[in-house]
């Protein structure tokens, strides 16, 4: 059984549309700072950005059947791009430029890697190995090029401001404005990716996941589509990384490491890889629960997450989101 090939059995046809659930989730997230102004307002944007990175993987893994262990690599590239741009004195808002540079860096890096690998017919486990190497390379470059990146000491980054042309400026130094800026970015990313998944392009990706050879014989240049989706996924993870850098004010080499990449795969596998919303929620909840549990029980939490991961891969290939409709139906029957 190959991890890289996803063939979810039985398509769930939920009575409630995913967009409706997403809207409720986003409204709740939007109300949270009104009710609570403590630590949660500071920390939740970080988890939302992990959720955004998880969505970038779900697009690739759940929709197209391509597994990547390189998402943290892209996340780190985005973070460092933001940091490098923010260092410079620029006539335009460096925060905006940082995000733009991060997106372009992701698009280019993933596009180039994807082009060479997919047009050479590299697939499944071999592609996974290359993305794994990407994570290692990014981490190593971050360590070795210390004149740019600060090496193991990492890089400190100022929080940017939002400027609206001549209309004014909002500093993101306080947690509440930062929270809303990140929330808006996450909603925009969800909406854009959801649109992509439902478009002609997205349906062709599903066809490639289900039967690559058949899509080719139907006239589709599958290598081109796979390159394009990998580039979009890389750019999304990079933008999440750039926002993370702006939020936390600090990036370090371990952000691009294999360990972090693996964690992303675990979140998405447990939450459900074939739904963007599930991946987003997985990124938010599984990562925050892991962080909480690692403080409570440092010895056993990794074991627990590992067992959950194995269970998800072996028995619930759709993750929690895939198992949920069936469980609901069963409980209704009782």
């Amino acid at each position, binding site marked *: 059984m190959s991890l890289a090939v996803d063939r979810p059995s039985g398509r769930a046809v939920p009575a409630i549309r995913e967009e409706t659930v997403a809207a409720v989730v986003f409204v709740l997230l939007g109300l949270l700072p009104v009710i609570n102004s403590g630590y949660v307002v500071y920390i939740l944007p970080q988890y939302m950005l992990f959720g955004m990175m998880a969505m970038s993987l779900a697009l690739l893994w759940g929709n197209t059947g391509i597994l990547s262990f390189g998402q943290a690599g892209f996340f780190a590239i985005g973070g460092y791009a933001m940091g490098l741009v923010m260092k410079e004195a620029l006539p335009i808002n460096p925060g905006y430029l940082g995000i733009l540079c991060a997106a372009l860096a992701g698009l280019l890096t993933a596009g180039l890697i994807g082009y060479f690998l997919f047009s050479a017919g590299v697939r499944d486990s071999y592609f996974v190995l290359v993305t794994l190497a990407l994570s290692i390379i990014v981490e190593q470059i971050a360590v070795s090029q210390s004149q740019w990146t600060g090496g193991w000491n990492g890089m400190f980054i100022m929080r940017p401001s939002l400027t609206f042309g001549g209309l004014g400026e909002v500093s993101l130094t306080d947690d509440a404005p930062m929270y809303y800026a990140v929330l808006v970015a996450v909603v925009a990313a969800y909406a854009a990716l959801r649109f992509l998944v439902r478009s002609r392009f997205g349906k*062709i990706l599903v066809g490639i996941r289900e039967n690559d050879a*058949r899509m080719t*014989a139907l006239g589709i240049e599958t290598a081109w589509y796979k390159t394009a989706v990998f580039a979009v996924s890389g750019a999304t993870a990079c933008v999440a990384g750039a926002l993370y850098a702006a939020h936390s004010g600090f990036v370090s080499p371990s952000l691009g490491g294999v360990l972090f990449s693996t964690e992303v795969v675990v979140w998405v596998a447990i939450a459900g890889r074939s739904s963007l919303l599930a991946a987003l929620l997985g990124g938010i909840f599984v990562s925050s629960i892991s962080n909480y549990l690692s403080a409570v029980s440092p010895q056993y939490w990794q074991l627990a997450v590992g067992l959950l991961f194995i269970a998800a891969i072996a028995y619930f290939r759709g993750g929690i989101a895939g198992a949920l409709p069936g469980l609901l139906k069963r409980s209704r029957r009782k």
Partner: protein
Amino acid sequence: MTAWLEIRGLTKRFQGVVANEAVDFDLVEGEIRCVIGPNGAGKTTFISMISGHHRPTAGRILFEGHDITTWPVARRARAGIARKFQTPSVFPNLTVSENIELSVLTCRGKVASRRNRIDEVLQIVRLADVRDTPALALSHGQRQWLEVGLLLGMGARLLLLDEPTAGMTAAETHATGELVRHLVRDLNLSAIIIEHDINFIRDLKAPVTVLHLGRTFAEGDFSEIAADERVRGIYLGNG
């Protein structure tokens, strides 16, 4: 005058083993041709070279005046050359109508006209009743028709059908014959069909090319081929 599909000296060797040797073959638009021959005659290799799944060792393939010998599979498919595989290649986890939708999507067009096209194709391949069934739950015969539906959906003009009646009941085989005749006569498609079922070939009343040991052994109407003692010797007599 050049033919619609013109094949000259087509040769394929797999590490010295000859699969096809200097095959010449012409097809006019709107024609059905059956390709028969005993096991190992090189029938599937021949189809694979037309669809682009195998690169010939020598020879060339002209389609509508273009030399397509080096074109990759997807480009030939977009030119209208569509292949049905020996083992049906469909999207098993998707429903019948989603399968057809994917093939219709490969041609750009308006959403509304796509919907109509999906319904049309489902009618032609007689799968409208099972449109919401996952492809993996179909009978073997229905799966073969679904694959033919995929070829129609993508806008194929030359159908390469590798054993379209394999694993079918007598009734299904008969229905498939009607389907193929409908495609060629009423929809003006062309087809090259590899078949083993002699009754199916007789019912098609189509010209037959006999391959033997990778070469063209005989060519003619079904009655001529059936009466040919040499062909009987290599194939029909042993069949």
